[in-house]
Every structure is written in structure tokens, then in C-alpha cells.
């Protein structure tokens, strides 16, 4: 029997309430929420340092209050990696919220085991080098050891087990994005763990679903002249109708805005993909070059013919390291003499910062070269220049001092210059270094904890 999987989150901050028309309309059998980008866990670490009960995404509060009661009433499981660094804390919050809402019998599963920050030393002692995938540098050899996150990309297995044990909501930390969506297919159809073609097809479905709006008209160059601009704020999020052989129809929430077409599916299929014949996940390596796309009615695209090969013996580990802070100031320079004024501004800043431990300083001319560098053709004499100054330091106080020293020139500045007030008042932003490596699969042990209301 067809399994209908809805996707209502593609990043931390997405509008998770797009799940409601899926659920209330009876259009889905399960809904998944993908919340974790490469950067998100480090943001959550900052929250958790301020309050140990946090460390999960705020979106989960909305899911628990507004979506869970209606999904539970229809027996539609919810699956999310929004537990971030604290799936157990998230489960407690959900239990307390559900208890207040009277959701008796609700079963919550929290999946942990992805967070290996505390065991990095032990793991290195037994032979895991965590060599950087880009540079080959060993973790032990890198000078800056200020790591704040270290998470393994888990696969679908623990989610499948939790679904089979009757969990109504499953909260995980780092799980490979498409594996979140693969899990309910395995639980529903009973696919075996070496049925590589079916698993790969499920991964492709997950990959198309995991960025929500991007497959229904968002970020679509192909649709630029074919979509009502107002639709973008109201897109109906995607749903996959999966068959037991792994093939599926990609569609969207009925009676909502947006478009699913061959074009939107092709655009999303290759999004953030490297070798399309070897899309590596914890559960299978998927081959996108054998699949067939077919128009299957309005807002429906059929995907079949995906092939797969055995999963790797290693899992990916993503670590985040503190590498300082950055700050932005935006200035405007207008006619006449814009280039002379730019030279004055640069010199004024350089002189003001003499002796300050500022590391990088970059000047971007918005609308001139900020996106495309030297590809952009030089403009001889523009009427206005918007100058974005970016600068970095080891600590936020240095950046605050730097801003104060520049602003002290407020009445001694290039003629007619103005500064964007919101950038003056902004806070420094953390610079996070990502360190990607591998770990032997056998060293990673996911744990499932159940809580009932």
C-alpha cells in the first residue's frame, strides 16, 4: 500500500505549520521535519551553554503545541532531527507539553548516540584519526582544538525501530537528512537493509523532500516567469507517494500554492550533490544517473529506476570549532567622487584600527562586485556605492572597539557618507570552522529512550 510522506521543515526556522494542511486534510501518513544544517548544531551549543535544558530547536515547541495534538488524533507519526544537541531534553519538553494538552497514551522516542564530543579523546586512542576530509590533517595535529560540536550522521535504523515500537513522535540529533525520510518507508514496507535499489529510491525521495519549498517553486529559476510572486510566501509543502518497489510520485499538499514539475524536481535533485552516481548516505549509496522522471498529472512527477550500491563501512562526522568572530558595517557613498571617497573611507578605517588585533578586512561593493568578484564589469563612475566592510578578530570585544573607533570619525568622514545604523548596533557573529571526517560504523551506538504521557 502506498505510503504518503509529508515534509514540513527544511531548516531551523522553517514554517513547520505547513504540516497542518497535510494532516488536517488527511493527505499524509507520516510527516518529517529536517532542521539541522551544518551550522545549526553550533548555534544550539550556544543556547545550551546559556541553559543546559536547551540545545534543541525552538521550532519543536511549535510542533509540540500546534501540530502534535492533531497528528496524534489521526495516528500520524512525526519524525524530526530538531532534537539537535539535546534530544532527551526535547523529549521532556514534548512530554510536559503533551501532558498539559491531555494527549494520554502518547509515546515519545528520543534517539541519541550521534554526539561524540565527549569521547573524541577515547576514540582517537582506539585508532580513529578524524582526518579532515578536505586537507587530510589529523585531528590530533591541528593547533586549534576549540571544538564545540562533534556529531556523527546516523542512518535510518533507530528511527525504524522506534516506529515499529509505536512511537508517535521521534526526536533525534544529527541524522543524515534523507535518512529521516527513508526510515518510515523501511518501517512501512519492511525493506531489507541490503535491498540497495529500494533504499536508494527512498533516499532520492528524501533528498527531494528535505528542502521543503525548494521542490514546489521556491528558489526556482525555471519558474521565474511562471509562478505568482505572492505564492512564494504560501507554498504548500511537498509530499511523496511511495510504492513498495521504491518508486514514488513527488507532489505537494493539495489545494495550496506552488508547483511541482519536471523542472522543479530536476533543480532539487542536483541541489548540494557532488557525484550524482554516488550520493553517499549512512544507509546506501544512491545513483541518480539511472532514474527516470515522468510527468504524472498536475503537480505530480513520477520517479523510478533509482539504483543503489552497498552502504559504506564509515559514517561521516561533522565537528564545529570556534575560530573567532566577524563583524559587518555598511556605508553609503554618493556622487561626486565616489572612488575618491572610497579611498578616504579605507584609509580612515585602516588608521583608526592601527594596533588593534584585527585579522581580516574586506571591502565588498554591493551591486558592483559583492556576488561575482572580477566577473562583474567595472562601472566607471557610479552615482552611488554601497560599501560593506567585513572584519574579524579572535574576540568580540576587539570588534566592538573597532566599531567605536570608526564611528568616532563620524564628523571627520568622507563628504556625504552615511552608515547603516542597524549594522552599527549589530552583535559580532561567531566564526565556526567545520571539520568533516569519518568514523568506523562499528564505533557508533545509537540509543533509543522512550517516554510516555
Amino acid at each position: 500500500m502506498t505510503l504518503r510522506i509529508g515534509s514540513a521543515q527544511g531548516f531551523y526556522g522553517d514554517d513547520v505549520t505547513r504540516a497542518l494542511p497535510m494532516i488536517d486534510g488527511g493527505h499524509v501518513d507520516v510527516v518529517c521535519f529536517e532542521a539541522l544544517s551544518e551550522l545549526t548544531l553550533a548555534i544550539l551549543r550556544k543556547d545550551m551553554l546559556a541553559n543546559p535544558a536547551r540545545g534543541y530547536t525552538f521550532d519543536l515547541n511549535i510542533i509540540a503545541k500546534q501540530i502534535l495534538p492533531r497528528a496524534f488524533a489521526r495516528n500520524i507519526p512525526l519524525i524530526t532531527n530538531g532534537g539537535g544537541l539535546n534530544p532527551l531534553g526535547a523529549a521532556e519538553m514534548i512530554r510536559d507539553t503533551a501532558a498539559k494538552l491531555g494527549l494520554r497514551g502518547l509515546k515519545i522516542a528520543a534517539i541519541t548516540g550521534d554526539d561524540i564530543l565527549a569521547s573524541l579523546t577515547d576514540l582517537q586512542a582506539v585508532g580513529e584519526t578524524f582526518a579532515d576530509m578536505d586537507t587530510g590533517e589529523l585531528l590530533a595535529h591541528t593547533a586549534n582544538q576549540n571544538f564545540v560540536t562533534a556529531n556523527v550522521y546516523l542512518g535510518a535504523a533507530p528511527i525504524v525501530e522506534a516506529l515499529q515500537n509505536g512511537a508517535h513522535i521521534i526526536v533525534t540529533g544529527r541524522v543524515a537528512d534523507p535518512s529521516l525520510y527513508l526510515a518510515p518507508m523501511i518501517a512501512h514496507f519492511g525493506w531489507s537493509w541490503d535491498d540497495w535499489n529500494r533504499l536508494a529510491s527512498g533516499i532520492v525521495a528524501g533528498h527531494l523532500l528535505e528542502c521543503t519549498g525548494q521542490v514546489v517553486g521556491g528558489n526556482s529559476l525555471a519558474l521565474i516567469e511562471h509562478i505568482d510572486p505572492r505564492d512564494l510566501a504560501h507554498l504548500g509543502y511537498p509530499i511523496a507517494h511511495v510504492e513498495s518497489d521504491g518508486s514514488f510520485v513527488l507532489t505537494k499538499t493539495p489545494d495550496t500554492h506552488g508547483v511541482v514539475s519536471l523542472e522543479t524536481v530536476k533543480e532539487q535533485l542536483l541541489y548540494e550533490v557532488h557525484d550524482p552516481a554516488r550520493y553517499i548516505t549512512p544507509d546506501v549509496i544512491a545513483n541518480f544517473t539511472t532514474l527516470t522522471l515522468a510527468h504524472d498529472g498536475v503537480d505530480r512527477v513520477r520517479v523510478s529506476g533509482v539504483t543503489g550500491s552497498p552502504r559504506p563501512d564509515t559514517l561521516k562526522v561533522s565537528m564545529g570549532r570556534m575560530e573567532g568572530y566577524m563583524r559587518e558595517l555598511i556605508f553609503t557613498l554618493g556622487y561626486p567622487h565616489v572612488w575618491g571617497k572610497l579611498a578616504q573611507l579605507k584609509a580612515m578605517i585602516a588608521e583608526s584600527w592601527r594596533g588593534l588585533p584585527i585579522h581580516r578586512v574586506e571591502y565588498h561593493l554591493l551591486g558592483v562586485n559583492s556576488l561575482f568578484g572580477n566577473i562583474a564589469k567595472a562601472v566607471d563612475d557610479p552615482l552611488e556605492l554601497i560599501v560593506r566592510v567585513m572584519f574579524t578578530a579572535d574576540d568580540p570585544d576587539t570588534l566592538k572597539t573597532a566599531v567605536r573607533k570608526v564611528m568616532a570619525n563620524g564628523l571627520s568622514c568622507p563628504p556625504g557618507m552615511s552608515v547603516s545604523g542597524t549594522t552599527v548596533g549589530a552583535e559580532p557573529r561567531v566564526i565556526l570552522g567545520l571539520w568533516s571526517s569519518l568514523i568506523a560504523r562499528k564505533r557508533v551506538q545509537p540509543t533509543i529512550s522512550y517516554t510516555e504521557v
Partner: protein
Amino acid sequence: MRRLYDLAYGRSGDKGNIANVSVIARTPEAYHEIKAKLTAARVKAFYGDLVKGDVMRYELDNIQALNFVLYDALDGGATRSLRIDALGKSLAGILLYMEWDT
């Protein structure tokens, strides 16, 4: 004069300091032409200083698209980059600006 955009559309995204750009042909004829002429070396030359590392090209005959992987292309990656487009979202669009018939 045609630009690549007349033959194709596309989307770009990031993984760490690596960007990828898809170039999806509008017609079978366009795919044939793009596959023959849009080499990795030509893409690398087009991006110039924006892409500091290698460019790899992958072909998807089944959906008539090419996928380009641009190494060391995002100023250290989204979490380190000082660029305003730290995720490289605009990189596909500018490739389509390429003059095609010159």
C-alpha cells in the same frame, strides 16, 4: 548573441567550502550542445578568482543535465566566509550569463 541561460537553467548550493552548480538543458538539442562544449576547464576559467580549487563535471544524460562541483569556492565555507552570499546561491545564475556563441 545567446547566453548559456538561453539553453539552460540551474541551481547552486554548498557543502562546506565546496559549491555545486547544476546546468539543466531546456531541450535535447541544448543538452547535446552543452555536453559537447561546456567543459570543466571552461567553467573553471569563467569563475576566475571566485573558485580557487578544481572544477569537476558530472553528466546526467537521463535528465539532460550537467553537475559541476567547485572546490575551494566559498571563502572557507558558509560558517567562515565573509562573502554576503556565503552559501554560493548566486553561482548558478552567473554561469548562465556566459556568452555562448563567441
